[in-house]
């Protein structure tokens, strides 16, 4: 028997297995920039583009000149803080032969804690472009002041008492046409703050045991539908007022929603929205007969949903785990400062700016007077359950420093974060895989 040949075969199999990974990574690669006929791949020294303050920051640029002529000119890079202050600017001659590749290493000296915008500029014979990246330094050491009004707790305590006075009148209706052999789908209706009717979708996989619950809250004016993505959790997707199928009374446009009735803290739309989230949780805890394992309910959301999830976990200690992505409105005062430094303001600062410009009797200070009651950062110290947070470093809706302002105020002993360096208002697929691992650990789940 030619044993060595056989072992060589196994070794090849092992390497082939590993190459599956490499190919998958290559195909999923989001770091490749394709502009004109020069392709530039930008890779941060740390995969997540988050560096320690004691270490230098580095990027590797793989430049592929696909022109049939040499490219010559300048390569420069500019580092600014997220508030637009220049930190570093370097320029150098750059030349690359036709149809060849060249690597450049950008080295930036250690920086203090914060987030930085990096612009990589190529001004070449036939190619002129700027690639934009963001990196972070020691984000967990960032400090941000809370802007909690003196009567913050009193305000929310009173609001919760008002909610408690409203009979929920739960109505759970099986949706046969949406159900299948593996799960039942229910439309859930309930009365919430100010007696508004809100609705959600409950999906219950057919299992013989009590199941953990994934309680999902919606993004900004996003209608949630039944969640069929898992058989490991009961899923409850709640549409807060003005979202999805909860628009009977509150049905405002996308732009108007964020400042709807913001004239006072008592009337602001999010007062009811936040209470809707608590009412949804009340529903889950009051229906164990549906197979709900009330000891394993986690709340999750992205963007506005992330904020709503934070508020829910902060105000109701029955929440066992909190999973958020790109949480909106975090450290809203800083959000405004950063947002107004962009070339053009982005959501949500853009909407508030327009609102202020169109209303002579309001101002940023007046907005802050109300938003301070609603800024998720001010709720963060009330969160004590394990937290996982995902952010996109290129996110202009929820700047990464604002997300870390929130994160660093969580009182949770167990908290972790995940950064997607090449994404904007979203997180990479890998985050969700990590979130599954994290859920499994904390709930001791077997998938």
């Amino acid at each position, binding site marked *: *028997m030619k*044993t060595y040949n*056989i*072992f060589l075969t*196994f*070794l090849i*199999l*092992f390497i082939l*297995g*590993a190459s*599956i*990974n490499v*190919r*998958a*990574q290559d195909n*999923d690669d989001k770091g490749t920039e394709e502009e004109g006929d020069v392709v530039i791949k930008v890779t941060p020294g740390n995969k997540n583009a988050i560096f320690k303050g004691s270490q230098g920051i580095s990027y590797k640029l793989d430049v592929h000149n696909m022109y049939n002529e040499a490219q010559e000119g300048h390569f420069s890079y500019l580092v600014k803080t997220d508030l637009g202050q220049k930190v570093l600017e370097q320029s150098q001659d750059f030349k690359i032969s036709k149809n060849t590749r060249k690597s450049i290493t950008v080295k930036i000296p250690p920086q203090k804690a914060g987030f930085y915008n990096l612009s990589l500029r190529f001004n070449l014979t036939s190619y002129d472009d700027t690639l934009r990246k963001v990196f972070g330094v020691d984000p967990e050491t960032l400090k941000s002041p809370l802007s909690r009004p003196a009567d913050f707790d009193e305000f929310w305590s009173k609001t919760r008492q008002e909610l408690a006075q409203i009979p929920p009148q739960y109505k759970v209706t099986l949706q046969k046409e949406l159900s299948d052999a*593996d799960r039942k789908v229910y439309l859930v209706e309930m009365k919430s703050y100010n007696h508004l009717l809100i609705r959600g979708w409950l999906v219950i996989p057919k299992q013989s*045991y009590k199941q953990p619950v994934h309680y999902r809250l919606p993004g900004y004016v996003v209608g949630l539908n039944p969640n069929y993505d898992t*058989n490991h959790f009961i899923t409850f997707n709640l549409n807060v007022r003005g979202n999805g199928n909860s628009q009977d009374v509150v049905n405002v446009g996308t732009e108007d929603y964020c400042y709807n009735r913001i004239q006072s803290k008592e009337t602001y739309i999010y007062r009811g929205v936040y209470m809707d989230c608590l009412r949804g949780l009340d529903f889950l805890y009051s229906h164990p007969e549906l197979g709900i394992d009330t000891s394993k309910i986690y709340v999750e959301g992205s963007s506005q949903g992330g904020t709503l999830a934070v508020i829910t976990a902060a105000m109701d200690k029955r929440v066992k785990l909190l999973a958020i992505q790109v949480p909106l409105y975090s450290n809203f005062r800083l959000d405004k400062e950063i947002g107004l430094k962009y070339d053009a303001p982005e959501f949500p600062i853009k909407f508030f700016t327009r609102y202020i410009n169109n209303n002579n009797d309001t101002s940023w200070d007046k907005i802050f007077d109300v938003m301070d009651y609603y800024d998720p950062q001010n709720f963060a110290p009330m969160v004590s359950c394990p937290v996982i947070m995902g952010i996109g470093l290129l996110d202009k809706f929820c700047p990464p420093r604002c997300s870390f302002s929130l994160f660093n105020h969580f009182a949770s002993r167990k908290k972790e974060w995940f950064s997607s360096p090449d994404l904007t208002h979203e997180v990479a*697929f*890998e985050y969700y*895989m*990590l979130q*599954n*691992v994290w859920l*499994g*650990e904390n709930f*001791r789940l*077997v*998938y």
Partner: protein
Amino acid sequence: MKKHILSCLCILLFTGVITPRKAFAGWPIGKYRDLFVPAFNYFKATDSWDVNGKKIKGAPGTGFESYALNLFEGYGISRRLDFIASLPVVYQTSKYVGGTGKGYGPTDLNMGLSYNLINSNYERFLSVQASAIVPLYNKNNPNSDVGFGSLGSELKFSYSGNIPKRILKGCYFNTEIYYRRYFAGDGPNQYGAFAFLGFILSKSNQITADVTAIKSVSTNREFNANISSIKDFSLIKPSVNFGHRFTRRFSMFVGGYYTVAGRNTAIGYGTNVSGIFHL
């Protein structure tokens, strides 16, 4: 024929070590999670390959038969680090020209740590495992002479995970290569490889196929009256299994295997039944 018996012992030993691994295909167990895998193995052989790999027909009435129970325990210490322990217990009988023999009892305890070096999107994992091998029998007792009787160690690399859907839908894999060293002066040194493919048939059912290759190398190539001191052999063993998930915490696998190639070892077939408990 005594060589034959030794070879069978070796097969048994390796089968016992490897069987639980395929049950969870090399994935990290997961922080705070327990995995317990009892596995029963039956093996029977009548023929053998000689030192040159030539097939030798066994004499009428001779053969080897063994029953083994392997207990595997894994515990997730952290997201990346697992504790693993494996303990095979065997009962075996042999019939050869001019006599019979038997051996029973625990064999080599394999205990160590597995560390996930790299993961790709938490779908594919490259891990390294280091473990110690401790004989739990008295080699001087003829009724418990069921192994090499020396301390050893093992270093294993595994790469496992889901196969990307665009390549093969509903499949997962595990590949392993390992080196095992027994600390006696003449070893042996063992080199092993394992390739595994699992096909998901439905929510509860799957079939798996794998192949194991082992090469055991020693300066001691001579036959010895003490059969457990014969240390030089090699073999290839493919296996097919069917798995059914009864509950989310309990699954069973049933399968069979056959030694298709080898040197200085037995030609035999076997079956195994394993239960997988996620505690």
